[in-house]
């Protein structure tokens, strides 16, 4: 899986080049127009940090940031986002250079199996940018699109609260 990846099947006639700006780099894909953004990221760009939990917008595991706004990447097509700035978990921070939210998730044990975690972190990044959540109750309400079957919810909320405080006091 390289920067250029393409669909080979029945849709080869329909396949078209699509350039996506992902985590600060332009990536060219050759995909059928009905390829979801999620499958484009996972199967064509090898960015498997974004997870597929339901493929129906019901679980939030596939949450990414498009122009800073959190969306379910399974409910949108890759071709619709040419020219947009896409940020996935791989663009939030890396081992050795973790984003404060990622560090807060580790410190608060805000995950167990880790499968919903990239979606929770991307969603929380979007939530903090929205500036709407001020209380734990508001965080809970506005994070309710991101399911966690391991039941780490109280720790996730604690990690987000912590990261929000850090963001507020940052110079």
């Amino acid at each position, binding site marked *: 899986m390289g920067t250029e990846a393409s669909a080979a099947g*029945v849709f080869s006639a329909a396949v078209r080049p699509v350039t996506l700006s992902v985590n600060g780099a332009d990536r060219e894909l050759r995909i059928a127009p009905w390829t979801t953004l999620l499958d484009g990221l996972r199967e064509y760009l090898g960015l498997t940090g974004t997870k597929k939990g339901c*493929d129906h917008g019901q679980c939030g595991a596939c949450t990414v940031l498009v122009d800073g706004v959190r969306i379910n990447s399974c409910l949108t097509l890759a071709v619709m986002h040419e020219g947009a700035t896409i940020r996935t978990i791989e663009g939030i921070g890396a081992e050795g250079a973790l984003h404060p939210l990622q560090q807060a998730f*580790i410190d608060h*044990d805000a995950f167990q199996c880790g499968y919903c975690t990239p979606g929770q972190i991307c969603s929380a990044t979007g939530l903090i940018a929205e500036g709407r959540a001020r209380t734990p109750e508001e965080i809970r309400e506005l994070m309710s699109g991101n*399911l966690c079957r391991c039941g*780490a*919810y109280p720790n996730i909320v604690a990690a987000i609260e912590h990261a929000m405080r850090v963001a507020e006091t940052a110079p």
Partner: protein
Amino acid sequence: MSMTYLGKAVSRVDGPAKVTGAARYAGEFPVPELTYGVVVSSTIARGKITRIDSAAALGVPGVVQVFTHENRPHTAYLNRSWRDEVAPPGAPFRPLYDAEIHFSAQPVALVVAEDFETARYAASLVRVEYEQGPHTTDLERERGTAYVPPKKRNGIAPPPDPRGNAVEALAAAPRKIARQYVSPFEHHNPMEPFATTVLWQDAGRLTVFDKTQGVQNVQSYITSVFGLKAANVQVISPFVGGAFGSGLRPQYQVFLAVMAATELERSVRVTLTRQQMFSFSYRPNTIQAISLGARPDGKLLALTHEAIGNTSQHEDYQETVVNWSGLLYGAENASFIYKLVKTDWASPADMRAPGATLGVFAIETAIDELAYELSLDPLALRLANYTERDENDGKPFTSKELRACYQQGAERFGWSKRNPAPRSMTEGRELIGWGMATGAWEALHMKAAARATLRAGPMLEVASATADIGTGTYTIMAQIAAETLGVPIEAVSVKLGDSSLPKSPIEGGSWTAASIGAAVQAACETVRGKLFKLARGLENSPLANADIEHVEFADGTIRLPGDPSRSVPIDRALAAAGTEALEAEETVGPGLISSRRFSRNTHSAVFAEVRVDEELGIARVTRVVNAVAAGRILNLKTGGSQVMGGVVMGIGMALHEETMPDHALGRFMNHNLAEYHIPVHADIPAAIEVIFVEEHDPEVSPLGVKGLGEIGIVGTAAAIGNAIYHATGKRVRDLPITIDKLL
């Protein structure tokens, strides 16, 4: 001895990989020239495929093959060959075996194509015609056909023997209740769908990346079903996106992916859809009946507990449902019955604390009902019937600090301030209720192996074929290794989830920390002994006259406590001896005499507060205190999370979770995460408090560990149901307690 890592709140060592998206799950391993398989599922519950037409799918450019029962390769013939490590008695389901349909959404074809979009489209073109047979999926309607399973499932305790004469004692008891409790189908629904990526290599070697709780269980299943050599099949599963029991048995996607890879001589990935996640493995639908007879002072005189659970037509899935009431309460007259009903569903499977969640829900609700019948405090009634031995077989426990759980949980929760009268507490338009329940689970130690390898650095690697499904196995293995050899935890690397590693049982039953932990410790102790010999044997060794009992291993050195001059760094010992690595593999199993002499269990006391809006019928859980006695706690952080996660799943069980069958179609209707409700952020209070009650137990396992994976869910649903009764005066005996039942 003071500990650096054990018993501390150590952050997960696999945390950075998980929060950055670098952790790879089964369906994410990059493989060159990969093909994609999409499963076609049956639309009927029972019958026969009369015609299956793959022509249109095969005509799609990019489609490589369509597999059905008509062109599947040869597989094993005997049932024995299909039975995995945890299979119940019976004939395991065989994917694409013949034209028979055994349950709705059974896989009937696998479409393999060069890319996912093509495979998904072509799968929609496979035409299947059926001759529909009559199906039975309704437990309530079929309960008259219930039978005692003739063959017991391995590792599952049969119902206890009867004690005294329960029928007569019930008839004679001055106070009594008889109640029925119903629990629905529930699906595990781990966030990660089941997936397998098979890397096909020359000469037929397969590397199988599978979502599983037992890599060696899957490896032996594959080799025996397909007649492959173990040396040619390696199963790898470093990260598992949740499983809760659904990954104990090999699921059908691994069969299909391996079948396609060996036939096509190509690499293949098969990922199930969320809808297909409802086509196997679920908590069985049960009906339970409990009768209790008591003296007015609360002393139990008689107890009967009967449970009926559904199973498939082809296997007798069994779990331990009725034993828990017998374990917890010392009624002199008691009887226990556990029966199955055959239904046209896939086989049920172990789901977090299988059996105990259901049996304990029933008995702990019944005890609450009896407390109201007798006008006694529910906690006082439990204490009046407290037992220091396992009432099922008379054995003492290795330890049982349940009394301390009750006491510490009640104190933390403020139980003494409770007004026992239902509907006595309100705030605004909400009724407030407080309820409590007991929890219990097994504390098993299984035979397991681990390897430790120490190199200069120092660098220490520990390895075992076990799994980490979010439970924290990586972290406790690293803690135990670092502690035993006195190296920083950062110097420890952990390998697991690979069938080529030292032998491990499946990761389940809450036994992993005790079992793998003991093996890791033993392997590290052997390395420690070897290392000490090297250090003592150095020329002019400062430890020349020391013995291993009196030295400490700390900060990467071996030294005499209190005398810093008498110290040998690990690196120096290795270098001086010209040894590149010290390695040891150890296998540790349970003590057989101890197993026979003692019962071994974890216990808990769960206290819950609910608020109910009567006009809307909405119940919210606002506070939970769970006091757990589980022996030694290796990691306060991950251990606390385990119990908290169990409580959250228990809240789901109490209020949300239910897979709804349409019996006319024999099909689950809400097979998605929008309609199968699991708790979301807004459903879960911040105030879930976990108390670990001190319990020193050197008997239960070498590390004194009992395990935490399941105890958190047990009792939670009963505590919430009891709290809802206290709030509203309504006793709901069929789960989940949804709005319609409270209005």
